[in-house]
């Protein structure tokens, strides 16, 4: 059943090609069907491959299929080869499944847009690149996918390129990503030099065989993680993600919530042996993840733009995933990635539905009491919010709890504490969003109110499906308190992610930690309720008492301004200096000079062509004399 897994990336790839070349002449309806069906076909094959994979015994994993011999240089090969194992299957399922639902949603959301075909071409291209990324069997091909999703991110963020802010946001995303990628490439080089092959199997064997020293492992791991901070928007390279909300909402859902930004987590999990070998790197990952989680959560508290809140929430949640990986619980990190894909994309799509209903309004100060008007959007959004807050029986609870428990079990109390504080803030800002949008008095624009309508089924059906999964997806990874065998997710990943030195807690401790997580989540929700429903003036009073803190948070700690002053302006000034002195003077001078010299030489030589036969004969004679002389001497 697993023979066809290599088709998973190629079907969207073929669809992209058709849309790119022929899209101009294809009718809109056909484009929608082809784009969505190609992703659906990939999803079906992914499910079939997954079922087939369950039957394969661990020694035969991973299944690798080489499609095309790409780089062959001496002993070093890097081929277009795809790999099927637990990790890549999970990612493929998430990408194609959630991707399919978002494609369907986009049919409704982008129905009236001019660039409809262009949008679906880019979306399919993104799916193709992302699938290449997660199914690559060597790091060079993975990097190709890595760059590909970065490109699609740029194209889709700047989709409405006539708007200056959108074009700038696209540029910012790509450039910041690139900085991370520079470190990533260095990491790849170090791997290739020392291990002579980019294949993951070979790398893992080398690590297992002791060919890598701890120092080298740390260096490589840190470089790779630096690349991940760019792609997955962690400190210090997260600044592009809030601005990326300029793109269409389905794009934010797919790329900046469910899939692309989680590529970093996937990469760290793929290299789990490397990170485990180097304790320092793992600790760095955990600390950066935890700090980012809290840091982003604080910024989400004050934003008024519904999508910005969700953006900061994404940054924060990815911080949790890295936190999980950093403390050694790679499976937990991947589990959170998987559940997060469902509820975060649900939240984004529902937010899009709200914006669609209000004709594009995204400022929460102009919303309120919408639950009467949006009978499908409101409950699904609520489910997403409950899931992310970590309330039990919903998926977010299981994954977040897994991470926090592992952190505590490994003795990382500081990280655990940061995680708990983050959980409070998460619950608080999510429900702040819910209450401001759907409850309370109506602060709507009169014009928006007249067009208020629920979204069409093509948009609401994906919402319902995602809501369903946001509830049930978590049950594959039950915590240890329900039995050692209950963590189906973790056990599925075992061939890829070797369970590390598992510290065990007593059952009592486990229950205690669960209770603390739940309490913390409910606490956050209650505070939000107090602030925004019971006494709506409370936020304003708090702000007026601590104006400096509020300003700091509202202006995102002025990080963008700092980066601008320190890095961007100096780069611009440096480039201008180089342009004036080198580009204009040296390069243009050389080219103009060459042209002038050629013209001058031509003028000189034209004297030879007098038009007189005699002169030509003279030159001929001269030539013969010289030639004969040369032959004689």
């Amino acid at each position, binding site marked *: 059943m697993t023979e066809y897994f290599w088709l998973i990336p190629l079907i969207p790839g073929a669809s992209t090609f058709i849309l790119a070349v022929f899209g101009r002449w294809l009718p809109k309806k056909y484009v929608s069907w082809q784009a969505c069906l190609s992703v659906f076909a990939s999803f079906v094959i992914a499910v079939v491959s997954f079922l087939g994979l369950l039957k394969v015994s661990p020694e035969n994993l991973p299944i690798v299929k080489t499609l095309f011999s790409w780089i062959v240089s001496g002993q070093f090969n890097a081929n277009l080869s795809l790999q099927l194992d637990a990790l890549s299957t999970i990612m493929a399922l998430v990408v194609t499944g959630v991707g399919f639902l978002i494609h369907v949603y986009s049919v409704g959301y982008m129905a009236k847009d001019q660039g409809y075909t262009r949008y679906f071409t880019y979306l399919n291209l993104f799916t193709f690149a992302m699938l290449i990324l997660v199914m690559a069997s060597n790091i060079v091909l993975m990097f190709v996918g890595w760059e590909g999703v970065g490109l699609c991110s740029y194209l889709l963020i700047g989709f409405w390129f006539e708007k200056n802010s959108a074009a700038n946001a696209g540029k910012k995303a790509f450039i910041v990503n690139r900085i991370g990628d520079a470190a990533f490439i260095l990491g790849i080089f170090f791997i290739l030099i020392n291990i002579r092959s980019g294949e993951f199997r070979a790398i893992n064997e080398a690590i297992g065989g002791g060919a890598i020293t701890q120092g080298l492992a740390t260096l490589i791991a840190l470089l790779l993680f630096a690349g991940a901070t760019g792609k997955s928007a962690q400190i210090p390279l997260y600044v592009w993600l809030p601005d990326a909300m300029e793109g269409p909402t389905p794009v934010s859902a797919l790329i900046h919530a469910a899939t692309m930004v989680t590529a970093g987590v996937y990469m760290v999990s793929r290299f789990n042996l490397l990170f485990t070998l180097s304790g320092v790197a793992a600790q760095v990952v955990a600390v950066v993840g935890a700090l980012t989680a809290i840091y982003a959560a604080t910024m989400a508290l004050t934003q008024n733009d519904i999508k910005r809140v969700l953006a900061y929430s994404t940054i924060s949640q990815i911080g949790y995933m890295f936190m999980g990986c950093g403390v050694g619980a790679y499976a937990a990190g991947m589990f959170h990635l998987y559940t997060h894909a469902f509820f975060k994309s649900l939240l984004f799509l529902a937010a899009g539905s709200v914006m669609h209903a209000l004709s594009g309004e995204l400022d929460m100060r102009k919303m309120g009491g919408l639950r009467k008007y949006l009978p499908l959007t409101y409950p699904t959004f609520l489910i997403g919010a409950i899931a992310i807050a970590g309330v039990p029986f919903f998926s977010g609870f299981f994954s977040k709890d897994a991470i926090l428990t592992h952190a505590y079990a490994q003795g990382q109390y500081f990280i655990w504490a940061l995680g708990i504080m983050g959980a409070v803030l998460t619950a608080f800002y999510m429900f702040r969003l819910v209450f401001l949008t759907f409850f309370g008095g109506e602060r709507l624009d009169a014009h928006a109110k007249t067009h208020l309508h629920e979204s069409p089924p093509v948009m609401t059906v994906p919402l319902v499906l995602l809501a369903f999964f946001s509830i049930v997806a978590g049950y594959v990874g039950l915590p240890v308190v329900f039995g050692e065998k209950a963590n189906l997710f973790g056990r599925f990943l075992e061939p890829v992610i070797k369970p590390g030195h598992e510290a065990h807690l007593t059952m009592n401790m486990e229950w205690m930690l669960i209770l603390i997580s739940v309490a913390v989540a409910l606490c956050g929700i209650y505070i939000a309720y107090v602030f925004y429903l019971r006494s709506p003036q409370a936020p304003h009073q708090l702000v007026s008492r601590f104006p400096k803190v509020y300003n700091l948070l509202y202006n995102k700690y002025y990080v963008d301004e700092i980066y601008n002053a320190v890095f961007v302006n100096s780069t611009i000034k440096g480039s201008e200096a180089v342009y004036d002195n080198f580009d204009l003077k040296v390069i243009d001078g050389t080219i103009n000079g060459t042209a002038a010299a050629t013209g001058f030489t031509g003028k000189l030589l034209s004297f030879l062509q007098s038009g007189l036969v*005699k*002169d030509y004969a*003279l030159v001929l*004679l001269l030539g*013969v*004399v010289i030639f*004969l*002389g040369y*032959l*004689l001497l």
Partner: protein
Amino acid sequence: MGIFLFSLLAFICLGSVLGMILSKNQAYNALYLVLAFAALGGLFGLLDAPFIAAVQIIIYAGAIMVLFIFVIMMINLRQGITPEKKKWTLFISAGLAVILLAELILAITGTFSALGHAGGEKMGTPTELGRLLFTDYLYPFEITSILIIAALVGAIVLVKKREKE
């Protein structure tokens, strides 16, 4: 006897060519050249090539130079052409020519004695030449005939006066 003949003919040849160079009148130049070609024909004869000698005299001295004289008559210049005004090109050419002469003579210094003598056994009889022409050199022979026709037609077409259109 042979040497005497050779010196005579060589002298006539060189003398005529020099005369041609020094004279300013084109008709005189042509006549000098006829004399030179005749002497050359004689020299060919001395070199055991009687057929070629005859061909040279008939065609070169007899046909080609006559052609020249016809054209000179048609052009009908009243006065001669004054010699070169710019003297320096003259000297350069002369100088280069002398250098070429020296080089060429230098080139053959090694073979002064190797070339053997003229007069004697093998003669270039028409039979022998004819045999070669029609076996080894058949293609060039036929193609040359086409070439002559082409030159003939070309020359006539070129010089034909166009009717006023």
